[in-house]
């Protein structure tokens, strides 16, 4: 028992047991931790004295015989009369022909750990709940979207029926109509066609909800932009608006960086068409719309950032119209945000660009015009092998 004075001096809490696990010695500190008087436990089997060990006699005897080097029970919670929890760890080692049981008071450490674990679990619960609600919402919005698509399809086919019927009535060899009737029918047809266009845009918008384009193939962006601009040529002339191409800042009739974008040509075409048509609609007679395609050497810092491992090109659709007021500009890409039009064109354009991994930004100051800037990741022509 040479070791005992040293343990006592070091204020270690311990119990000593004989080979039958009866307690033969107990330090003052151990008695205090267990909440008993030191003499009270002498001669009592440790399996009766310590509830945590009540069923563990076989294990402890394995330690006594040396078959097991140690038996440990950590972080035992003991409730104090003052309501606090005391955390004890218990280590049983073979000693002389019996057992040495060491008790370590880890309350300070464990209270801190309890605190941290509490925060962590509460956060985890919150996180679980948010994730659950998120799932629920996604499901609900999916159902709404499905319903919308269904209704829009139905409306669309009914309205194209109406439009053809009106056309039929307006045909030269149809029954003659009075001027007023003809005028009313023409107005009606205009309205129906506008509504038809709206249903098409709604369906476009829906299709663009997918994370990536439905088709992916190499597109020569310059060619695509030219084609779209060509298609607007007569419409622009009617409104007295000029469309110009600008290559790398020098106004030219053609511009040709060998920019290949991978994606869905029809979708991109629609997006660019919507930007140009928006420009034509919101500028006065005599205005100019400049299309400028450039490749970027320095990648600008955007929020969220553009992927710096990609090559980026920029298509500007710039007009010198009246510009857009800041409060309108803020909501410009939301469906139906701009008065006097069907209101989905810019939303469609933005979704299309996003779907292609790009970004659509607006720069506009009242009185100085508007620029829609499209960032798209591209691959150089030689990489596509054309």
């Amino acid at each position, binding site marked *: 028992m040479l070791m005992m004075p040293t343990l006592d001096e070091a204020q270690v809490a311990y119990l000593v047991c004989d080979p039958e696990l009866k307690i033969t010695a107990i330090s003052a500190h151990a008695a205090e931790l267990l909440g008993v008087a030191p003499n009270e436990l002498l001669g009592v089997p440790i399996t009766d004295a310590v509830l945590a060990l*009540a069923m563990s006699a076989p294990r402890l005897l394995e330690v006594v015989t040396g078959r097991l080097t140690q*038996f440990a029970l950590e972080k035992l919670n003991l*409730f104090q009369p003052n309501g606090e929890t005391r955390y004890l760890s218990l280590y049983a080692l073979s000693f002389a022909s019996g057992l040495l049981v060491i008790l370590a008071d880890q309350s300070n450490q464990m209270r801190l750990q309890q605190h941290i*674990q509490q925060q962590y679990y509460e956060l985890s619960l919150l996180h679980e709940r948010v994730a659950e609600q998120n799932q629920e919402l996604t499901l609900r919005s999916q159902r709404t979207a499905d319903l919308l698509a269904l209704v829009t399809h139905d409306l669309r086919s009914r309205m194209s029926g109406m439009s053809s019927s009106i056309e039929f009535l307006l045909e030269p060899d149809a029954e003659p109509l009075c001027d007023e009737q003809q005028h009313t029918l023409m107005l009606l047809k205009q309205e129906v066609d506008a509504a038809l266009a709206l249903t098409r845009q709604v369906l476009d918008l829906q299709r663009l909800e997918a994370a990536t384009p439905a088709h992916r193939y190499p597109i020569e962006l310059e060619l695509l932009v030219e084609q779209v601009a060509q298609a607007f040529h007569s419409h622009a002339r009617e409104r007295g608006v000029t469309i110009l191409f600008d290559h790398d800042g020098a106004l030219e009739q053609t511009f040709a960086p060998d920019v290949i974008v991978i994606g869905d040509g029809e979708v991109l075409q629609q997006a660019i068409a919507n930007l140009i048509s928006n420009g034509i609609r919101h500028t006065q007679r005599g205005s100019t719309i400049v299309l400028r395609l450039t490749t970027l050497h320095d990648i600008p810092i955007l929020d969220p950032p553009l992927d710096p491992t990609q090559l980026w090109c920029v298509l500007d659709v710039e007009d010198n119209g009246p510009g857009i007021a800041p409060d309108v500009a803020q909501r410009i890409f939301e469906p139906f945000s701009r008065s006097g039009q069907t209101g989905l064109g810019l939303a469609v354009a933005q979704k299309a660009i996003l779907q292609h991994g790009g970004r659509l930004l607006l720069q506009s100051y009242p009185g100085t015009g508007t620029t829609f800037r499209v960032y798209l990741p591209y691959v150089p022509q030689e990489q596509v092998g054309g």
Partner: protein
Amino acid sequence: MIQRKVCLVGDFAVGKTSLFSRFIYNKFSEDYLTTVGVRMQRKIVPTRGAAAALILWDIEGGKDGATVRESYLDAATGAVVVCDLTRLTTIMNMKNYVELLLRVNPAMQIVLAGNKLDLLPLEHAHLILVRRVAAQLDQLLTLTSASTGVGVEDMFTTLGERLIEQAVQQP
């Protein structure tokens, strides 16, 4: 009187401590105070035959898979695997706890507790699910609420009876 060690295990915040407190002290608190380590208490359960003394071990919960310090399970012959009926992951995770318990002691008497029954409407999808999980694991399921006390006493009595039966068969 036979004395048996019974462990309460399961994911964090499923209500192990609450079941323990309801059974031992007939008390319940809405507040969540996570358990670090383990605490134990002895209680005598009167069963049809003899009485049995259960030493209940309320063990700290696991997160991401069944994690129970194996020394806590030493000498345990009974266990309650608890899940929170409102949280799907805790229901699915019971399987891992059952497997762990049977690895430690193949003769372990296990009861599954679907807890927080008071928070679910009758015939919630999770109730159907938890019954299927129990059937798959081939373990007894009890539905409990530590909050109202429903099922708690019965669950421990059933477990006590099983432990006595086991003791009679193999003393």
